[in-house]
């Protein structure tokens, strides 16, 4: 019977990737000290969804980076709720609705 299992729906790859990263445990200091790392390297991912309208100019790297980060945060925020266990109330309500459905006993 569905409910329990169906809650474990497959998450899109990128989301799984996000959540698999030990919950963003990247240290701020490390990231900042890594300012010499090449960050403009174009690597297309889902995150680019957020910035696809920006022209591909190296001068916009900084903005790209920020938008990418905001986009990732946005998804994290959303996905945190998605990944919360669904309160029983929801399924209870649906179950009750099922009983009062027409054509059903």
């Amino acid at each position: 019977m569905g409910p329990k299992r169906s809650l474990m729906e497959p998450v899109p790859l990128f989301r799984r990737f996000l959540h698999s990263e030990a919950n963003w445990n990247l240290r701020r200091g490390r990231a900042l000290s890594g300012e010499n790392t090449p960050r403009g390297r174009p690597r297309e991912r889902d995150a680019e969804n957020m910035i696809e309208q920006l022209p591909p100019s190296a001068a916009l790297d900084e903005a790209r980076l920020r938008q990418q980060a905001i986009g990732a945060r946005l998804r994290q925020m959303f996905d945190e709720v998605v990944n919360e266990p669904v309160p029983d109330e929801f399924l209870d309500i649906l179950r009750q609705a099922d009983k009062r459905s027409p054509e059903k006993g």
Partner: protein
Amino acid sequence: MPVGGAARPVRSAAEDEAFKRELVQLIPHLRAFARTLCGDATAADDLAQDAMMKAWDARNSFQMGTNMKAWTFMILRNQFYSEKRRSWRQTQLDQEAAERTLVAVDDPEAPVALDELRLSLGMLPPEQREALILVGAGGFAYEEAAEICNCAVGTVKSRVSRARRALHAILDDGAYDRDGASAGDAMRSILADAERLSTVR
């Protein structure tokens, strides 16, 4: 309250069952979308439950095989805006609500940035916020978001882009509505993620 109406052919129990399975799978997404609209977690769950029931009642009008997620999101959104007239909605996230929606994350710094993002989102005009959420977090194509919001695709695109710019500016200036934490910290923490995104394979 049934939207589907009895005039339509009633589907078989098996079809109802299939519909319900799909609907149950969507509950987490409905909750998340509702949370972004309401801010307040309790109000959001009420909204999500209402939307779920409306979807269930209207199941006969749903064409199986089409995008049920978009369909239910549209129902939820309509519900939200009709409820809004009863004005339980908060335009701004109050601090308590923001706290309640916070989820513990391993990184002690991450919640700060998340919190700032939430508060900043709360400052966006609702139509920009929902467009950004749908496209940026909900995984909808512009076309689908346009359908959900009942507007033109171009409108969604411009809302998303304006929302991004505004969000960026709010976070950058620390103009979000909260004392205490420094905005620079939030942006730095967010940037740390960007660094990670560009270096992690």
